């Protein structure tokens, strides 16, 4: 598996430039200060798990990374290219970033295969046959090639989420964002999704994952980040994070979820 997937991020494109940089990011919803002075660097190939209590701003932060939300202060830089120069450039930068949502957000009026080929045809303008070949290879990677002709709502939650991962991977992103990818799933389906994510991590993809699956964090993460009230409180490798966090707030949180 990893032999075939390691080519996903060619070694030649790996550089010293961080994949993701958030620099002094501040964001408000109305008067509510959601993100406070967020500074974060994620190196190429690094896997970062983000956790924290509900409402702490995890989703908002990860959505700033691909500019589904716009910060009022600070800069977001992807592979050395900052967002906000022009709409055209922003679109280009965004193409390097795939995203997987809690609610899957598959397009219900298209088959699984069409969900995957859709952006290839309309954004990359690939011929149909080529787009379908790419899509099928990725559906195989997430272990559901046999569902290609079905509609999303005919699949189980775990299958839908794996389609969503395949759809994001179709665009050959260099960074993948996951916002609580397993939170909407029944317990027995969580593992099939996590498995795919572990395989993806092993292939060398840069990943930012908001999740409360601490098993996944232990296994895959290079760093675990804990957020509370719009701030990054703790940022440490998993062994340190779980065994010996610096802040009482982190300890309290861990005691609640572990």
């Amino acid at each position, binding site marked *: 598996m990893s032999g075939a997937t390691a080519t996903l991020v060619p070694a030649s494109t790996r550089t010293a430039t961080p994949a993701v940089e958030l620099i002094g990011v501040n964001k408000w919803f109305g008067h509510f200060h959601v993100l406070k002075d967020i500074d974060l660097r994620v190196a190429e190939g690094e896997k970062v798990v983000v956790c924290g209590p509900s409402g702490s701003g995890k989703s908002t932060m990860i959505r700033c990374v*691909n500019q*589904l939300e716009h910060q009022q202060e600070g800069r977001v830089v992807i592979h050395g290219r900052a967002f906000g120069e022009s709409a055209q450039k922003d*679109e280009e930068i*965004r*193409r390097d*970033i*795939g*995203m997987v*949502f809690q*609610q899957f*957000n*598959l*397009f*219900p*009026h298209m088959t699984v295969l069409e969900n995957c080929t*859709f*952006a290839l045809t*309309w*954004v990359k303008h690939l011929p149909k046959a080529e787009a379908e070949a790419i899509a099928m290879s990725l559906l195989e990677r997430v272990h559901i090639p046999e569902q290609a002709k*079905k*509609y999303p*709502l*005919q699949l189980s939650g775990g299958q839908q989420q794996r389609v*969503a991962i395949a*759809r*994001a991977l*179709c*665009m050959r992103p260099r960074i993948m964002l996951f916002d609580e990818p397993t939170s909407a799933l029944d317990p027995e389906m969580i593992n099939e999704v996590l498995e795919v994510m572990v395989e993806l991590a092993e292939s060398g993809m840069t990943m930012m994952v908001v999740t409360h699956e601490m098993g996944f964090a232990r296994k895959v993460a290079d760093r675990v980040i804990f957020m509370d009230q719009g701030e990054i409180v703790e940022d440490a490798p998993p062994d340190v994070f779980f065994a010996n966090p610096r802040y009482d707030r982190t300890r309290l949180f861990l005691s609640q979820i572990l």
Partner: protein
Amino acid sequence: MPDEARLAAADQPLVFRPKPERPPPTSSIGVLGWMRANLFSSVSNALLTLLGAYIAIVFFTAIINWALVDAVWEASNRRECLDRVGRAGACWPGVIAWIPNLLYGLYPKDQVWRINIAFLILVAWALPLWLPRVRSKVGIGLSAVLLYPFLASYFFHGGAKDLLWTALIALGMAAFAGVWLTTLSERATGLPFGAAIARLTGAPEDDEAATRTRARIAYAVLYLVAVGVTTQWSLSEVSTRYWGGLFLTLVISGFGITFSLPAGVMLALGRRSQMPFISLCSTAFIELFRSVPLITILFMFNTMLPLFLPVGVEVNRLVRAIVAVCLFAAAYMAEIVRGGLQAIPRGQYEAASAVGLGFWQSTALVIMPQALKIMIPTIVGNFIGLFKDTTLVSIIGLFDLLSMARAVGEDTTWLGLFLEPFFFITMIYFVFCFLMSQYSLNLERRLGAGQRR
């Protein structure tokens, strides 16, 4: 010892044997079962059923007696009808004599074939949409909506044509030819017309650029031929003053229906726009047109528009009515579409932009198809309303189906014959509206296939 045996048995898992299937009880199947369950389930229900059946029978026999059994089918004037059956039976000869006028208004009899041909062309244009193995259905549908009106206008109106008009008519003609050439070539080879020609003239299959160039040349040649035909083609002018009847009703509502949907979509998007100016303009337009009755808008356009236009510029009365109906329908459609858009979760926009689509692409390919699908019943309901509302144009002096029906009873030969023509046009309206609503149900079923919500 028995205890041990039981323990040993408990170690063995029990084998699950599903019960065999049984047929449903007879009382719940078949016509009789259905009737027993739904019509005669209790004494009061049975009484209501009998009462309902009695009323329906009385009502329908009365109508059938009047319209068919006691009706007069041949007579030369109303007096004759009255002498024969009085008011107990319908007097159809008046309606029959007026059928050409009910259908075409005062359109010259020897030119009526033009309307019929144009109508057949529309049917032929839309036909490929229902044929299997035709791929370019979106293109065919769009061309019918956008280009058919030019061709049809010339059929209906005729007369002199300047350069622009010639170009547009030729466009309609070429599009119609292109639709059928594409249909035939796709059914035969799986390729649209242009690509098939490119292949025939020797463009290699994998050379996209060459295929595209040759396809363009093929379409250009088609267009030039159409221009040539158009310049040679001339029809006598039939002023819109003579248009009327069902034909006029269909023209007005056809324009209203085809214009209102795209315009409504644009207005709805405008109203939701982040740009304050666009949002304000759209909202103002929608609210203005929605809060004024159609009859008032028709009057305004008919009497006041000429006052605002520069002297010498004259806009045809029919055009004024069509514009008024279109704008009114667009405002209503905009709110329907906005409702549909609101039902689409925000996650769909986000997923679309996360895979790299821009605003227009995600709107056209992700949001609108879903929104339109859930809006089908409301949209078609609105179309049906619009179709019937066009009867209002009679107050600004256009002779639509309703005014033609009224004219029958004012004809000296058929003086006072009102009921029969109204009955007749009621049937026409019913057939059209019923077909529209059946089509909408059919569309819903087909689009809903495979997608449970």
